[in-house]
């Protein structure tokens, strides 16, 4: 059974095609990396799958049902830079937001929900920061709060937008750990990712994207120099000679 199937998504942005005929299907219980150069439409793809952007065409199904009927089993970790961290709220409150569509309209979070949120904070090692104003957290800690919020959703399919951007090494490890736990529980994870060097270690499936899909499948068969050259154009020549520069260049 496919956890996610995307059919023919096209998106225009400022009258230019940002995504063209993207189709792929992700098997349940896999970790997929969405890889591609800057401007390839990686974040745009996730956002249009989640219906945060208007799409020109295409359809998205989660476990064979239209995605709009499946929002309760979808978890989402947006880019950290997209929210105002000076907002007057604390870490526990943010995690509780992951429970909002379970709590229901006009109701307040009850003790059970709060205990649940606290348990999620503890799982990412943030239990001591529950009442900390979010602007006083480091970048890595903020990302952990977002992870805890996604965990609190108790979803079946997770979408993460550049979760490793600007985080410290221990947070990166915590994210990997969590992704593996989710996989072990049979959950499906899609991750927009930047760093080519870690692709082999982190993902069992890869979608190589440059406005339209270059290749999709198991990492070993897709993450090849040939495919990368297609996705990145000539720039990939750096990969063999000086792997460390690729990270900055792409």
């Amino acid at each position, binding site marked *: 059974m496919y956890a996610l199937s995307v059919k023919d998504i096209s998106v225009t942005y400022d009258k230019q095609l940002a995504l063209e005929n993207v189709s792929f299907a992700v098997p349940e219980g896999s970790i997929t990396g969405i890889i591609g150069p800057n401007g390839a439409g990686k974040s745009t793809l996730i956002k249009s799958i989640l*219906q*945060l952007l208007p799409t020109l065409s295409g359809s998205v199904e989660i476990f064979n049902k239209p995605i709009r009927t499946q929002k309760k089993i*979808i978890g989402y970790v*947006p880019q950290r830079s*997209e929210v105002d961290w000076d907002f007057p709220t604390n870490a526990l409150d943010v995690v509780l937001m992951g429970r*909002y569509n379970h709590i229901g309209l006009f109701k307040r979070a009850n003790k059970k929900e709060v205990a649940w949120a606290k348990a999620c904070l503890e799982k990412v090692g943030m239990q001591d920061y529950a009442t900390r104003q979010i602007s006083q957290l480091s970048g890595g800690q903020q990302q952990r709060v977002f992870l805890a919020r996604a965990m609190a959703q108790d979803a079946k399919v997770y979408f993460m937008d550049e979760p490793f951007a600007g985080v410290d090494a221990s947070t990166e490890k915590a994210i990997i750990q969590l992704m593996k736990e989710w996989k072990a529980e049979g959950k499906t994870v899609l991750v927009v990712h930047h760093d080519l060097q870690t692709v082999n270690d982190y993902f069992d499936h890869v979608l190589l994207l440059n406005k339209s899909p270059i290749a999709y499948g198991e990492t070993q068969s897709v993450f090849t120099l040939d495919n990368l050259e297609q996705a990145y154009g000539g720039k990939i020549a750096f990969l063999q000679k000086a792997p460390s520069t690729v990270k900055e260049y792409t």
Partner: protein
Amino acid sequence: MEAVTSFFSSANLQWVLIGSLLLGFASGVIGSFVLLKKQSLISDAMAHAALPGVCIVYILFQVKSVPFLLAGAAVTSLIATQSIQTIVNRSRIKTDAAIGIIISVFFGLGIVLLTYIQQNSSGNQAGLDSFIFGQAASLVRSDVQLIAIGAFVLIILTALFFKEFKISIFDPQFARGIGLPVTFFNGVLLFLVVAVVVIGIQMVGVVLIAALLITPPISARYWTDRLGLMTILAGIFGAISGVSGAVLSTALHNLPTGPVIVLSASLIFFISLLFGSRKGLLFKGVRHA
């Protein structure tokens, strides 16, 4: 002394006090969300745009029935908001410039219409000009009852939508991603802002009511990092400003209410700026010393 006693025992004044208290509280609470949504200036445009609505209704129907006038105010307010959106979406003009254009066009139109009314109206048209700066003393009991009941309803509505406003302002992408109707919540908030502007303009006036929406929440932010406490504090600050403005302007004859309300709100702001326990200058100084 006798004047003061009779002043406070007047039944009308008791209503003015309740009205200004609830209006100030509602403004502070709703304004907290407006401020966090970074729409302070848009609320100012909505307020200024209320004036032509009042005048147009008066010219068309020749009645000074307050609910009618306020309905006109709501309509032009919404048109102004929509115009700002349209300008930003359809042209290369940025939001700040679009707001600047809309404020001046609508307020200019309002002043022209008001002058026309004052020069041409045959009957008693007294009072329309009090929509500019507000005049608590000229309010009749039914006006104040409308303000009090309206404000009370708005406070209840805001409390109901507290959790929904919070998530759709803090992280609208996430909220949409998990299936919450963010557009609907934005619409509800817009409705609340228009409503509080409309019921408040008779007391505070179109020019300054945005200050009653924005100054109390800014002050409250200096005292707390929790949204719940911030909205309540903003409500209290708004209520204090509203009551002191209404009392002072009624007691000292011919002082317009809006400016006095805004001055007391600003005083609270300066106190908060200096002594606020979260972000106040003095507190920061102590921490850094």
